[in-house]
């Protein structure tokens, strides 16, 4: 699987950044070749220095490649790429000067070695500044999907909402930070439509994804939607009274039901922070399941 993943990354880089990759390789070859050709070998080699600077050069190359693997082309990518490339060249010349002595009358390599790192850092800093602006826009896109913490490993791979572990951590964190008098949790289950054939009555994954997208489009900025497994979701509403939260949820469901047929069972709980978040969520889920069961039997 690892080899497959590496192959896929290679394909991505080749498809989107082939020119940048070639430029980096050609630049490195030309720089190393001309440095070696115009210099004379050193009589004594300090292998510890070679190991240290060689490792730094290798890691700088890794950064460059990871950057290309991670980002599509664009202004921020160009700036970060330019900075990382310059930094790698400087590291490369640093390694080479352990084997050869650059000619004293020809200062180019020594200058590149000395000046490249601060210039590279400057370019990377400018790139990071633009990345910050870009990230602020992306954060706006993710506003109804996350609270104050980002952890990609806790994402639900189907809906790309956060899962229950994330919700638990956030509630726990909120409990530790301040008095959470204003958090309302609505846990709800998306049931098969009323009247569906019993043998095939289940909410399929396409409906779950569609439902999640519709909910996100209707949510307010401070609300966060999580998927708690199966057909179960949790909506966290902040700065809202219980009655108001209930009303908002009903309106939300009505708006979503204009676009798709839904059958929802829900429960609402206020998070007071007086009990551990995991047992709070477990109790809520248990109550939801009991309610769902009761409504099924009716």
């Amino acid at each position, binding site marked *: 699987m690892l*080899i*497959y993943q590496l192959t896929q990354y290679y394909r991505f880089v080749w498809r989107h950044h082939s020119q940048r990759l070639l430029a980096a390789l050609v630049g490195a070859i030309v720089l190393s070749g001309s440095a070696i050709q115009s210099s004379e070998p050193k009589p004594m080699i300090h292998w510890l220095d070679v190991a240290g600077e060689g490792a730094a050069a290798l890691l700088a190359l890794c950064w460059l490649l990871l950057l290309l693997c991670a980002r599509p082309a664009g202004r921020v990518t160009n700036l970060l790429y330019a900075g990382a490339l310059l930094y790698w060249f400087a590291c490369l010349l640093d390694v080479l000067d352990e084997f050869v002595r650059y000619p004293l009358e020809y200062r180019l390599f020594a200058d590149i070695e000395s000046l490249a790192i601060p210039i590279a850092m400057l370019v990377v800093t400018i790139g990071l500044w633009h990345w910050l602006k870009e990230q602020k826009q992306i954060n706006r896109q993710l506003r109804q999907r996350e609270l104050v913490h980002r952890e990609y490993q806790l994402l*639900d*791979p189907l809906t790309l909402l956060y899962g*229950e572990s994330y919700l638990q951590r956030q509630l726990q964190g909120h409990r530790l930070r301040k008095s959470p008098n204003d958090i309302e949790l609505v846990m709800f289950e998306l049931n098969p439509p009323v009247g569906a054939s019993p043998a*095939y009555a*289940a909410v399929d994954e396409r409906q779950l994804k569609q439902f999640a997208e519709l909910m996100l489009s209707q949510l307010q900025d401070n609300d966060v939607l999580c998927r708690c497994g199966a057909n179960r979701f949790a909506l966290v509403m902040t700065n809202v009274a219980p009655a108001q939260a209930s009303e908002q949820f009903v309106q939300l469901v009505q708006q979503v039901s204009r676009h798709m047929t839904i059958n929802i069972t829900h429960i609402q709980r206020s998070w007071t922070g007086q009990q551990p978040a995991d047992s709070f969520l477990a109790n809520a*889920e*248990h109550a939801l*399941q009991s309610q769902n069961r009761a409504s099924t039997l009716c």
Partner: protein
Amino acid sequence: MLVPAPAALFTSRCKFVPPLLAKLLYELLESRTDDACMYLSGTKLFAQDFASDDRLIAPQQLSKLVNNALRCADQELGFLLGQRLIQSSDPLAQLLNAQTNIIQALASLRCYQALWQVPIHYEGQVSDGQFHLNSWEILPQHDLNDFWRQVSAAALSGWCRHRQIDIYWQLPSHLQPQHRLWQRYLGLNITYGHPHLRATMALPSAKHQAPSPDLTMQQLNKQCQHSMSKLPLGHYILNAVYEQLAGNAHVSLEQVALHFGMSSSSLKRKLKDEGTNFSQLQDNYNRHQALHLAIDLNWSNAQMASYFEISDINNFRRAFKRWTGRNPSQLKQA
């Protein structure tokens, strides 16, 4: 009494499994990642293999795919696969959905198990007015067993839910940390501490007969038979050995080998290739039998020793402890 020998014995490398499970699992992975092909690495399967239902795969390929799929961040894949399986348009799923009682459904599943080849062994038992459906895993790879438990439990749970049948689940203790996950799919009636997966329901609901159109059943049976006719004749070796053990728990390796028309060393070698051996399979089978006799039927040690043809009661206690990890008295107290 020995069960008739199968026409051929397949190992996990032989391609005799219909691709349904792999296909459904791949579809689940496709909806969870941009690049589901990644999960096919090492399986020697390609996405286009799933386009045709005629292309058979080997259990080893399916196991590798499951192994890869377990790296996906979704813990619910097994449950979802079970749900999809029972709701699929596969003839066996259709037949099971047309059945109204679990005993008939189990009989159909046994009859056409080759269509799915879920590596789970099922056994129905009746005691105290209740029907117990015990299922245990036949694969020696323990890491995959929980996945197959999820598949079978979700399929059964889905089947029962739509017939309004209440089930009480007993699960192995090691699944307790994932209690909420199991509860989501199986409902609130779950207890832990049983050595294997067990579903219990009241006998009237297990035997419940609803008027079902015979014609439909006949058609569905015909469809299953037609699908079966496309498969090569034979049994997976581990299933075949379990069947022999179910026919006679005291059967020896030599007898089974002779019955399969091979030498003992060949059978040993084939079982070794599957990652197990005959005595392990026999102990596994005896464990389930011993637990059933001790817990469900409340037999005395002497009765059980007689059943297992062990003359000395102390030897029986030692054997019981080897099978189940506990003495009969400890087990009954628990």
